[in-house]
């Protein structure tokens, strides 16, 4: 009985944090207006509050007198296997865990984290979309959802070092900083690796890559599976401990940053004395302290705009740094979309959605909101600091045949470096 496993997991997860927020919900439906999937499709089942419906039902029926009474009287039904199958599609395919909804909710309910709890229950019961699960299993077995095995890793990096003539220090014991790329960058945006290496070298950073910690992506976190999330985090920390670094830098990957920087501490013992930061934060620091210098106005043509990623900006806090960088690179061309900063509209591909083929139609539909935003300001270049967003943008720009250039922030910085 899958529903029983889901129920048990929900109940195990329900502490004061979950319960108090479930209790606070007034069922007003305002959160729907925050969700790009609801806005793009008008399907009421995509309303954030509906995505936590089963968690709420489980809580009420287990912990509250009224919930028990409702169950007895037949007003509410207990959770069935059919419910689980239906909601699995909704919470995996139509939610990027962007947490925009929490900003709109008048009660401030953290819907994103609550939906993550829903995913946890489904993952325990094994009711996860097949595409996503395949990627998770690949990461368990090969160390990477995109098939970046040890061999692939080494040969790709060798090629990058060759192609862009850049030094990529590997397994340097005693280095200060461990940099970990995502397999999206390794396989799809190798130029990002070269760019980040150039920036670090220019800043005189004592950094290294690691063969052990070669994958920052965490598909267990997408799945909502605690055990596998920890397994993938542990691989990263093992690499960091082995090399004795003081700092771990997550590159352009949003949810990996969320898992490592904002979640790992509450799941496991994180090695002491290691700071975890994001490459955008690091570049921002370099610029502020003068460790790197950038050519002013290096990208000053057309209209350049910045897409805020849910996990790096809204949930990561690195909102100011990209602006500081772009005010140097594109002083006249830079223009904000509306809404932006922490209120930004999600790209529609995060949270594992882009890995699920069946979600393609709504993923494209959600991107429609982004197209509107870009068209309103006449953007010719859209910059971002998350390669998962970038994958979604690149794919959608092609799908909709748009005349917009999709750019990674690190790459622009690398191109504008002055010695």
């Amino acid at each position, binding site marked *: 009985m899958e529903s029983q496993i889901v129920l048990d997991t929900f109940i195990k997860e329900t*502490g004061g944090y979950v319960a108090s927020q479930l209790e606070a919900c007034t069922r007003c439906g305002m959160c729907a207006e925050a969700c790009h999937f609801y806005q793009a499709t008008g399907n009421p089942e995509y309303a954030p509050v509906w995505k936590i419906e089963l968690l709420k039902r489980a809580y009420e029926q287990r912990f509250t007198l009224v919930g028990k009474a409702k169950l007895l009287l037949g007003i509410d039904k207990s959770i069935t296997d059919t419910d689980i199958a239906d909601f699995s599609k909704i919470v995996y395919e139509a939610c990027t865990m962007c947490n925009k909804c929490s900003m709109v909710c008048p009660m401030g309910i953290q819907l994103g984290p609550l939906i993550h709890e829903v995913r946890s229950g489904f993952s325990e019961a094994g009711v996860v979309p097949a595409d996503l699960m395949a990627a998770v299993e690949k990461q368990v077995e090969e160390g990477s959802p995109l098939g970046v095995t040890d061999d692939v890793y080494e040969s790709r990096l060798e090629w990058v070092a060759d192609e862009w003539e850049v030094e990529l220090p590997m397994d340097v014991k005693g280095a200060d900083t461990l940099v970990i790329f995502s397999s999206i960058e390794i396989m799809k945006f190798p130029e990002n690796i070269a760019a980040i290496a150039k920036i670090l070298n220019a800043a005189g950073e004592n950094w290294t890559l690691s063969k052990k910690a070669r994958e920052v992506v965490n598909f267990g976190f997408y799945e909502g599976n605690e055990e596998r999330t920890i397994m993938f985090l542990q691989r990263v920390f093992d690499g960091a401990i082995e090399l004795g670094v003081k700092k771990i830098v997550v590159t352009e990957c949003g949810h990996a940053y969320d898992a490592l920087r*904002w979640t790992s501490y509450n799941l496991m013992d994180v090695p002491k004395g290691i700071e975890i930061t994001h490459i955008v934060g690091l570049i921002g620091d370099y610029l502020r302290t003068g460790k790197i210098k950038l050519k002013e106005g290096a990208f000053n043509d057309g209209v350049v705009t910045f897409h805020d990623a849910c996990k790096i*900006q809204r949930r990561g806090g690195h909102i100011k740094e990209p602006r500081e960088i772009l005010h140097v690179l594109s002083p006249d061309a830079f223009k904000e979309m509306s809404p932006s900063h922490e209120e930004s509209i999600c790209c529609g591909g995060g949270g594992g959605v882009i890995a699920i083929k069946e979600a393609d139609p709504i993923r494209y539909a959600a991107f429609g909101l982004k197209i509107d935003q870009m068209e309103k300001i006449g953007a010719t270049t859209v910059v971002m600091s998350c390669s998962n967003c970038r994958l979604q943008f690149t794919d959608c720009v092609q799908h909709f045949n748009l005349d917009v250039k999709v750019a990674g922030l690190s790459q622009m910085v690398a191109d504008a470096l002055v010695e």
Partner: protein
Amino acid sequence: MNWTDVLAFARGPLFQVALLVFIAGMAYRLVRVIFLGWQVDKVPARGSKVGGAAISFLKGILIWPFVPWVKNTFKKNPVIYLAGGLFHLGLFVVLVLGTAHMLVWKSLLGFGWKTLPLPIVDWMAAVTIVAMITLFINRLINPVLKLITGPAEWANLAIVFVPMVTGYMMTHHLWFRYEALFSLHMLAVDVLLIWIPLSRISHFMFYFFSKAIHGADFGKRAVEP
């Protein structure tokens, strides 16, 4: 039994019982949630959790939850913001700033305060009633609200509506004998007091939890909540 007896019962013993149920029920709900346990947050913060929570409450105090702080959300669902906001504002004015209710508070708490002139309170009561009807209709037609509304949600609106309407009719001496209306008003209030701890109208208590969590979660990431 005549209306005078009913009124005496609804204002006297029944009211006291209802008040007791309300207080005990809310206390139970509060304790229940608190004792479900809280995980200590071990994540090193970038910004201030307390600061975030403070901003979260400043943005959300009293009627401010109904100020659409997030761009582009108001025009997609103006009814909930306007009607929801006016309903709560009206509720506050009538229950706290109206002379009739202030006297009830005075008898319960032992002290009173300055109140607003009757025409203003009366006018706000009318606004509240219209707002509630609007919320009711909105629940009937909005696709998301249709999906998430069950008997309990209808009951919430109805059970708050009756005391509001009977109270309004009393001040205007409409239709019934005054005592009959007053009795109905008090009975409805008693029902409401008993219903609150059993329902989501208790949101005003858990609001303090969720808003604090929201503020702390954003504050620790150095993002404005």
